[in-house]
C-alpha cells in the first residue's frame, strides 16, 4: 500500500530540511495514534471483565479475559448474534451480486459502446443518490406491510441494490472506460464475437475495478441501519440492528458492547484495509485516480 504513495523521484534534501520533516513525521505519527486510540481502547476494553471495564480512572493493567466475546456469542444467556450476522451476510452478498448483474451491462452501454447522451444517463443515476432515503421510506414500509414482506431479508436485498446501483454504475463506467477502444476494434477485425471480447479483452482490464466496486457495495450494505431498522424486526434483523440493542445498556455490559462492535465491524475493517487505494477511487466515483 505504501508503494502507491511513494514518489518515483527522490528529492534532494539539505540537512535542515531532513530535521524539519522528521518533526512533521512525528506529528503524523501522533495524529495517526490519536485517531486510532478510541479503537485501540475499545479493543482493550473488550478483553476486560465487566467490573474492570467500568472503573474510573480506567485500569490499564487489568487482567485479560475472553468473557466479553463469550457473552456476545450468547454464552451468557443473551440473544445469539448468529442469525443477525447471517442475515447481514445474505443481504450484503446477494445485493452485491444483483448490483453487478444490473450495473455491468449498464456500464458497458455507457462506456465501451456509449448510447447517445450517455452523460445525461450517468447524471440521472447520480441524482437518485441525492434523493434522501426518508423520502420513500413510508410508501416502502406500507407496501411491505400490505404484501407481507415486512421482516423479510429479500426486501432489504432489493433496497440495498437500489442504494448501491448508482455508485456501482458510476464506478464501473469509469473502470470500463479505461479499456482502450482500439484493442476492442482490433479483436473485432480478427473476427472475435462479443462474448469472447468481453471475457478475453474487457474482463482482464476491468476486473480489479469490478472487485473494488463489489467491495464498496458490500461495505455499504453491511453498514446500513435505517432501512433495516424500519423494515425488519425479529427474523430478518441485521447486525447493525442487533447492535442497536446496546444503545441503552447502561454500564453493565461495556466489554460485551466493545466485543460486539468489533466483531460486527471485522468484515468491513478487513475488506477496507485490503483495498485502501481502490476504496478512495471508488468512493470518489472514479474521479480520483
Amino acid at each position, binding site marked *: *500500500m505504501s508503494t502507491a504513495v511513494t514518489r518515483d523521484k527522490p528529492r534532494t534534501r539539505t540537512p535542515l530540511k531532513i530535521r524539519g520533516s522528521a518533526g512533521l513525521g512525528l506529528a503524523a505519527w501522533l*495524529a495517526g495514534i490519536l485517531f*486510532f486510540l478510541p*479503537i485501540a481502547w475499545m479493543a482493550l476494553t473488550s478483553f476486560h471483565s465487566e467490573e474492570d471495564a467500568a472503573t474510573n480512572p480506567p485500569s490499564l493493567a487489568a487482567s485479560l479475559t475472553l468473557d466479553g466475546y463469550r457473552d456476545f456469542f450468547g454464552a451468557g444467556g443473551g440473544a445469539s448474534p448468529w442469525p443477525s450476522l447471517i442475515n447481514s451476510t445474505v443481504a450484503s452478498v446477494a445485493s452485491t451480486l444483483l448490483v453487478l448483474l444490473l450495473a455491468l451491462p449498464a456500464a458497458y452501454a455507457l462506456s465501451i459502446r456509449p448510447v*447517445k447522451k450517455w452523460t445525461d444517463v450517468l447524471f440521472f443515476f447520480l441524482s437518485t443518490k441525492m434523493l434522501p432515503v426518508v423520502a420513500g421510506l413510508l410508501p416502502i414500509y406500507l407496501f411491505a406491510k400490505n404484501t407481507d414482506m415486512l421482516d423479510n431479508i429479500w426486501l432489504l436485498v432489493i433496497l440495498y441494490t437500489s442504494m448501491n446501483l448508482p455508485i456501482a454504475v458510476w464506478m464501473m463506467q469509469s473502470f470500463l472506460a479505461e479499456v482502450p477502444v482500439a484493442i476492442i476494434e482490433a479483436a473485432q477485425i480478427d473476427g472475435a464475437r462479443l462474448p469472447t471480447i468481453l471475457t478475453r479483452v474487457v474482463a482482464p482490464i476491468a476486473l480489479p475495478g469490478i472487485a473494488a466496486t463489489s467491495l464498496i457495495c458490500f461495505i455499504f450494505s453491511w453498514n446500513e441501519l435505517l432501512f433495516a431498522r424500519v423494515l425488519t424486526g425479529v427474523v430478518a434483523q441485521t447486525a447493525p440492528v442487533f447492535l442497536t440493542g*446496546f444503545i441503552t445498556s447502561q454500564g453493565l455490559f461495556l466489554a460485551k458492547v466493545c466485543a460486539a*462492535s468489533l466483531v460486527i465491524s471485522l468484515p468491513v475493517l478487513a475488506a477496507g484495509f485490503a483495498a485502501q487505494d481502490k476504496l478512495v477511487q471508488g468512493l*470518489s466515483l472514479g474521479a480520483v485516480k
Partner: protein
Amino acid sequence: MTATASTPTVAPKTARAPGPKAPGRLRAWATRAPLLPALIFMVVVTQLPFVATLVISFFDWNALYPDARSFAGLDNYSEVLTDPDLRKSVLTTIVLTATVVIASLVIGLGLALLLDRRFRGRGVVRTLLIAPFLLVPVAAALLWKHVLYNPEYGLFNGLLHWVGGDGATQPDWVSNTPLIAIEASLIWQWTPFMMLILLAGLQSRDSELVEAARMDGAGPWQVFRYLTLPHLRRYLELGSLLGSIYIVQNFDAVFTITSGGLGTANLPYTVYQSFYQAHENGLASAAGVLVVIGSLIIATFALRVVSSLFREEASRS
C-alpha cells in the same frame, strides 16, 4: 429526475418510411438494451415510492386511525412549516452537515499534507488513520456514547481523572453538549475519508512545478497558497459534495448517541419518528417532500460542481 434522455429521438422518425429505418432503430435499441434493466430498476425502486410519498403528503392520515383518512390539501405542509420542532430539525441538519463537512475537510487537509511527505512508517500511519472510517457506523456511535463519553467510566473522564486527580471535573458530555458530541464522533469518522481524497489530490500534483517555484524563492506558505490550494480545489469540492450527501442523511449517529433528544433531531430522524413512532403518515410524507425539495436545491448546485469535475471525461464522447 432527468429521465431517459434518449427516447425522444426515436419518435419523429416513425412518420417516414419505416422499412429502411428498421435496422438502424434495431441497432439503436441493441445499444440501449443493456442499460434498461438498471434504469427500470432504479425508477421503480426509488422514484415510484417518492411519487407515493407526494400523494400521501396531501392526506390527513394517521396509521392508528386508518378509517379517518381524508384529503387535506396543503394542511400537512402548513403544519410542518409552522411546527417549531421541525423548523429546529431543519436548522440542526444544516448545522450538523456544515460543521462536520468543514471540520473534517480542514483536519483532513492537514493530515494529507503531513502524509504527503516521506517518513518512516508512513504506510502504518495511513492505515491507523483510515480505521475510524471503516468501523460500522452504529459501532462507532456506540464507541463514542459508551466507551468515550460515559460520565462514570468513559475514557474522556478517565483521562481527566488521571490528569486532575480525584477532584477533577467529570462532565456529562452528551447531556451538556449533545450536538457537539454527535459532531465530534462524525468528524472523527469522516476526516479519514477527506484525508484520502485530498492525499490522492496531492499525489497528482506536478512536483516539477513546485520545485520550480521553490527555485524562484517561493516559501512553503506561498507554494501552498498559490500552487497546492488551487490544484486541490476540485478535490475539496468532491470531498464536500460526497460528504454532504452522506452526512445530510445521517441517521445512525443521531439515533444511537442521543435518540434525537436534547435538540439533536435532524430531518431524517424527525421523519423516521413521525411515522414510525407517531404514525402520522401524512405529516411525515409532507416533511419528506420538503427534505427532497431542500436536497434538490443542493443537488442542482452539486451536480454542476460534479459536471465540472467530469468535464474532461465527458469530452470523450
